[in-house]
């Protein structure tokens, strides 16, 4: 028996992930991207596993992304939204969870309008819980896909300047990204209406400026946030029109940014409010790459939580090299794997001998910086 590495059971927030764990997730996600480019976009890795998407808040992108990610790994998925669930009959979150638990799911993906709901859930179920966005708290998978996207485009994260613009106070995306990017060595500056800058945000590692120009000066990455009309009380700004005029991002604002700046948006976009249509659709925009990477990141997380016996190791990359993840299927025991294998490119494919993704090992001494990008 080898020593059991430190594992994580749930993905609740970026705050509790180490830089090494983040790097490991990103490396894994990068290796999964190829699967989605095949004509048959499916591997048997999570066959027999059940993933429940429990969405108590409207979502298109995140929900579809999780569902596709699970299906591409051959897991069985079930999506439940608040309007169709027993919540409307007054069932509590814990009762809902316990009932679902009784059906033995392996992962519960939770989206909830209240901060901390995934933490509550995780204390009451045996399944792994993935936070798909909770209130104004965190949206860890969004931050991971943003990190992956930036790393792909820039080749690194360390030393980059990320400007996050807009409604910081209500944005779980901003919160997770401030934590994620600062952990990975990037410099984060936030800017927006003073009514939307939460207290002590600088203690999380972000620099705060009310001067939009200063925020954008030399920025390598600009992340524009959706103005969350559903979470605002009416006192934060006078009108959409004024917001668009003084806080909306237009192409002209990019003049002082780095020449190869990229523009991100977690979606859904309020076109013409926080971002102009020409910018959203223009050459600087990587908005759709974000969406593509979302599937890869979620596949990686599902795999790491379920498909890999080693799960995520905490910091110790050497151990990983010495002990590659063992296959969840017995040798050649999977009837689906041979045809899938033939279609893959043996050198680049994340699929190993038994149709199981072989996770590229981290390079020695990679402690959260950036050299471990897989090809």
């Amino acid at each position, binding site marked *: 028996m080898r020593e059991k590495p430190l594992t994580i059971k749930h993905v609740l927030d970026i705050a509790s992930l180490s830089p090494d764990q983040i790097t490991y997730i990103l490396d894994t996600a990068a290796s999964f991207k190829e699967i989605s480019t095949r004509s048959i976009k499916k591997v048997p890795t999570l066959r027999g596993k059940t993933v429940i998407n429990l969405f108590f808040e409207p979502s298109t992108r995140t929900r579809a992304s999780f569902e596709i990610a699970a299906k591409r790994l051959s897991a069985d998925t079930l999506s439940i939204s608040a309007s169709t669930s027993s919540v409307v009959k007054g069932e509590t*979150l*814990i009762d809902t969870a316990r009932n679902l638990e009784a059906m033995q799911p392996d992962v519960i993906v939770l989206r909830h309008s209240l*901060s901390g709901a995934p933490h509550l859930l995780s204390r009451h179920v045996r399944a792994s819980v993935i936070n798909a966005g909770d209130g*104004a708290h965190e949206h860890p998978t969004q931050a991971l896909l943003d990190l992956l996207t930036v790393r792909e485009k820039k080749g690194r994260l360390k030393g980059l300047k990320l400007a996050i613009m807009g409604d910081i106070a209500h944005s779980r995306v901003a919160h997770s990204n401030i934590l994620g990017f600062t952990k990975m060595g990037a410099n984060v500056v936030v800017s927006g209406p003073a009514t939307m800058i939460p207290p*002590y945000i600088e*203690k999380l590692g972000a620099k705060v400026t009310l001067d939009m120009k200063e925020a954008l000066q030399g920025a390598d990455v600009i992340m524009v946030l959706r103005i969350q009309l559903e979470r605002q*009380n009416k006192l934060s700004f006078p009108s959409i029109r004024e917001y668009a005029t003084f806080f909306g991002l237009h192409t002209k604002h990019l003049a002082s940014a780095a020449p190869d700046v990229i523009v991100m948006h977690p979606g859904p976009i309020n076109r013409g409010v926080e971002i102009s249509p020409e910018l959203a659709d223009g050459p600087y925009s990587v908005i759709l790459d974000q969406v593509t990477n979302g599937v890869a990141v979620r596949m990686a997380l599902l795999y790491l939580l379920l498909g890999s016996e080693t799960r995520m190791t905490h910091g110790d990359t050497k151990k990983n090299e010495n002990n590659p993840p063992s296959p969840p299927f017995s040798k050649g025991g999977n009837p689906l794997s041979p045809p899938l294998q033939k279609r893959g490119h043996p050198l680049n494919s994340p699929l190993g001998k038994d149709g199981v993704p072989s996770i590229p090992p981290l390079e020695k001494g990679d402690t959260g910086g950036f050299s471990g990008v897989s090809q």
Partner: protein
Amino acid sequence: MNLYLKGARIVDPSALTGRATGRSAGANETPAIVKADVLYDIYIRNGKIALLRVSGDGPIPPDAKVIDLAGKIVTPGLMDMHTHLREPGEEYKETIATGCLAAVSGGFTAIACMPNTKPVNDNKSITEYILQEAEAAQLARVYPIGAISKGLQGETLAEFGDMKAAGIVAVTDDGRPVMNGELMRRALEYARNFDLPVISHCEELTLCSGGVINEGLVSTQLGLPGIPAVAEEVMVFREIRLAALTESSVHIAHVSTRGSVDLIRQAKASGVNVTAETAPHYFSLTEEAVTGYDTNAKMNPPLRTKEDVAAIIEGLKDGTIDAIASDHAPHSTLEKEVEFDMAANGIVGLETILPLTLRLVHAGHLSLHEAIVKLSAKPARILRLEIPSIQIGKKADLTIIDPDRKFIVDVHKFQSRSKNSPFHGWELKGKAVMTIINGRIVFDDLN
């Protein structure tokens, strides 16, 4: 049964002088918080203190059960001026009887209960009901507090005179601030006719907009809506100025912020008749306790920062904060095992307030004497009740404390019907080991 309490130290804030006679302390090593004092014997006959003398100075009456209190401290019965009993209306959280049992188990012989029951204690029939149930429980003395406004709606005054005649000792809309400034002014004025103290729960609701914890670093980290300290402070300022305007007095409940302490200190210095209480959680915990979305650390006012905690302790030391009250607020898992935003505010406190206050004594912030003042004489004075004291001829309401007893807080052992406490698992030193009311032992954990 008559009792003979033998060889105890006495801490009696009501009798500050006249204890100088007698011999020096016993040979036992002296714990830090026990002053080198004299040991006394107390003979309790027919519910009253019949004898009080230096220990060993006379024969033990043959009809008395002897209780050896070596190493223990006897104080006048403690009084909690801020308790929520949930009866009538939410008996699944606490009844008057279980609340009284929790009180005596925590060393309290008297509690004042807040009016936010269902229905609200805003009329004499509810007041009478509470007193009748308390009488039936035969445990702690219960002093009901009536509502300021009918139904706690903040619109019209409740019938102060009628409720006073039925037995209330103060008025408050606790749990809800009186947002209408004129109503608060009229309450302060009208209460003067009936000699009723007015207690204010200070919270400017329009500054809280959905807040569930202190606005600060933790609220940002957890993505929870915040309640800024200023929401409390602007109302503290309003109450102070209204008390000055109406030449009346006001009592500020559960002070939680540095700014409130400063305002009250200034007001007292300028002669305004303002008193204040805080609760143990505001000097024992910070907003960090909420980390992990622990709903047992959700309360209103919310837990604040370590700077606020330091200011609260300073306010207790210099007398700005007169009293320590539990704000005992029982809730069941129905209200607490839910999403943080939806969880009810408050913690049970009667069974931890004394040990947590003794922590201040162990830490050198308060003398034992000062701590007992804030748990007995001051609350009684603020509520205009007789000051509890240990004197011959007085009713025998006594609390016996073992200042050295160490124990682990275990909510499952609470007598309260609810278990919502953020102190579960804490190791504390010092607790009540016996509670005597009218000469009757109502709680015994002596051995």
